[in-house]
């Protein structure tokens, strides 16, 4: 993260900016200081599971919104996977009309409290913000994400308006999977008057929002509140249903009376590296480590929760993505004294958000770069005790544009650990394709094949979106799919025409 001066404005300065908001030219706005949010100090936050950034105050949100130049191009809208009318939203915030701003935001985004926190804004709306361009730094963008989270929290505390739903159409849709794609699709379909039931494999809805993303990045009570709104809109929830096992898609359509199905089962298949000793005790997939800590509350083991997790002294996370950062930072909060990130390239190539890497380092996570495990060894009881790491150097750029790690021959080092969290990505879970005849999948990736305009699969009345069609991606991408799929399902329910042929993706 580049060194930038994070000035704090006084209340007086904030008020003055808000008062004169209509008098500033774009030139003035370019010189305006960004309103930085405050954060919990690293030494405090490693001891709790509260969020790292403090919420913007009403004045801060207003003053930051005033920085928007309301430019003609509206790059931010195009940069948003669900196309929030950001300038209109910011204008209302600037005026202090928070209710109006919430309504504007919710026209296209049904889960703003979540996206405001977990969207990678610095590569989306904020990356293309005119402020970023003018200053040649995304740090200078209007803090769209922080304002979005502020608005969603403001609404939760000042009375949520349950979206109005169209009169019942009599049509029923089964949404498979209660994660971001499924929740978004369900909300949109309910608004259009369709009966919607979400079938969830776990005992709790939310998908990756509850089992994967940790409390300190996304408080679970916020997810629960958002899901509660869906309930008030008439969406039905059936947890503990594994489609493909408890009931098949064919049965949903033929016996249980559903008119259409939306498959949003996510990327639930953890990748391992197929290394010797990878099945040793305390070698976890990131999915398992995070599920134990988040969904099953292992950090309250012995008091409020019965699911244990390793009591580690020296833990290594393998990988450099957001999930790796979440795992490492979760370990820190579980009280693990030494937490390492083992990554095969350098920090510059890490796919994680800069903010996450920055936070992880602040909290004491140590980086061990240009290395990759090749073998794990265990003690007599089968617990991992060390790993052999292959040293790497960077070679030519690969297809992703990042420089490829190349093993340095013979450069192997021993690294002591008592816990390993493998966080190298996820593939598509095969349960549904395996139990749904005629549902085409990508041979190599196992993802369900859809056309990306209507999200239709090779099976009539069956739609799919989110990670199950692309492999592991982002929450907002999944929500975008859910939203487009809902419109497409609505169209199909109205005219009954099936144009899907599941073109190759």
């Amino acid at each position, binding site marked *: 993260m580049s060194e930038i001066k994070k000035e704090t404005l006084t209340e007086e300065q904030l008020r003055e900016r808000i008062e004169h908001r209509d008098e500033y030219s774009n030139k003035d706005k370019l010189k305006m200081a960004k309103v930085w949010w405050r954060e919990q100090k690293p030494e405090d936050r490693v001891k709790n599971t509260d969020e790292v950034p403090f919420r913007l105050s009403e004045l801060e949100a207003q003053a930051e919104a005033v920085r928007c130049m309301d430019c003609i191009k509206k790059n931010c809208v195009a940069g948003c996977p669900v196309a929030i009318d950001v300038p209109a939203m910011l204008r209302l915030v600037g005026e202090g009309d928070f209710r109006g701003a919430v309504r504007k935001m919710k026209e296209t985004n049904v889960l703003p409290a979540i996206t405001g926190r977990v969207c990678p804004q610095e590569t989306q709306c904020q990356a293309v913000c005119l402020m970023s361009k003018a200053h040649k730094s995304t740090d200078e963008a209007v803090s769209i994400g922080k304002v979005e989270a502020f608005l969603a929290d403001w609404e939760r505390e000042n009375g949520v308006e349950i979206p109005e739903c169209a009169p019942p159409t009599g049509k029923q849709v089964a949404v498979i999977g209660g994660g971001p794609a499924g929740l978004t699709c369900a909300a949109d379909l309910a608004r259009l008057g369709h009966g919607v039931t979400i079938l969830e494999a776990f005992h709790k809805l939310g998908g990756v929002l509850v089992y994967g993303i940790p409390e300190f990045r996304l408080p679970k009570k916020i997810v629960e509140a958002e899901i509660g709104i869906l309930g008030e809109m008439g969406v039905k929830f059936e947890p503990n249903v594994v489609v493909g*096992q408890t009931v098949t898609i064919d049965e949903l359509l033929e016996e249980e009376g559903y008119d259409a199905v939306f498959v949003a089962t996510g990327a639930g298949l953890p990748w391992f590296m197929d290394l010797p000793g990878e*099945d040793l005790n305390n070698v976890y997939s990131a999915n398992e480590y995070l599920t134990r800590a988040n969904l099953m509350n292992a950090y309250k*083991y012995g008091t409020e*929760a019965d699911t244990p997790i390793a009591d580690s002294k020296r833990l290594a996370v393998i990988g450099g993505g957001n999930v790796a950062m979440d795992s490492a930072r979760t370990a820190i909060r579980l009280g693990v004294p030494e937490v390492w990130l083992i990554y095969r390239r350098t920090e510059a190539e890490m796919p994680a958000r800069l903010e996450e890497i920055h936070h992880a380092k602040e909290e004491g996570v140590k980086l061990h770069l240009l290395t990759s495990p090749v073998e794990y060894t265990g003690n007599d009881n089968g617990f991992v005790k060390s790993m052999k790491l292959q040293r790497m150097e960077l070679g030519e750029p690969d297809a992703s544009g990042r420089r490829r790690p190349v093993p340095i021959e013979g450069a192997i080092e021993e690294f002591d650990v008592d816990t390993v969290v493998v966080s190298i990505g996820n593939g598509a879970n095969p349960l549904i394709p395996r139990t749904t005849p005629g549902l085409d999948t990508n041979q190599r990736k196992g993802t369900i094949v859809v056309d990306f305009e209507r999200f239709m699969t090779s099976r009539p009345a069956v739609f799919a979106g989110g990670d199950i069609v692309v492999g592991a991606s982002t929450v907002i991408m999944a929500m975008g799919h859910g939203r487009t799929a809902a419109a497409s399902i609505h169209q199909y329910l109205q005219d009954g025409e099936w144009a899907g042929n599941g073109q190759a993706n």
Partner: protein
Amino acid sequence: MAKILKKKTIADKITWYELDAPRIARKRKPGQFVIVRPCEGGERIPLTIADADPEKGSITLVVQEVGKTTAYMGRELEEGGDMLDVVGPLGTATHIPDTPGRILAIAGGLGIAPLYPILKGFKEKGHEVTVILGARSKDLFIMRDMTATLVDKLLICTDDGSEGYHGLVTEVEKQLLESGEKFDEIIAIGPAIMMKFCVETARPFGVPITVSLNTIMIDGTGMCGGCRVQYGGGDKFVCVDGPEFDGYQVNFDRMMQRQAAYVGQEKKAYHDYLCRLEAKAQQIEATEREEAVS
């Protein structure tokens, strides 16, 4: 949420539950299991379905108290109450050939519960089934009569010699195989150590042997990989690839180590729970005594 239609103790620390779970009852096949979570904050544990009644919409689970979660179930859940979460049926079904053959099934202790629906499945397709049932002592047998009426031949053995053959199930297995009896398949279900030695006993005779593995799981859908076992040249996920596997390919030693991954924490949680229960009971007793006095 699943209503507990029936709950009874069938042996020391072994409880029989019938749960109202119509979808699972209709769908389940021999060999499959469910994951239950008994209460808020509770753990998710896999349990094999011992029987099901699709018309009544009920499934049967037979559970031995081995730790805090199973102790809570046995001691605090009540008939007429609810099991908070039940999900399934999970895993793949037992492969039961259509052409009738001769099957040798071996169950140790609680293993008869998961074995029972498999035996039923084999009998329905006309297989000839011999069962070796083992326990530490004769009072510890469960589901014995229902097994006896189902199968062609039932051989009993006990560790203490209180009934039947005095010794281990593997010794009876060996005698049968040495006597020249021919079996198309052996199925062994019980503690990992028993299954390991059933496999070793069968190996020189080359009879195919299937085992059912009970590893630690969380989701049961292949999402976490916590249940993985070393199998042949690689790893398998018990929850979706199993629970039944070719016994010759399973690395039982590693599997037993993985089963013991949290043994220290689990022992403490179990102990703490029992202490809390006892303290509660003493308090109630003291209050009652006080009330009686006044």
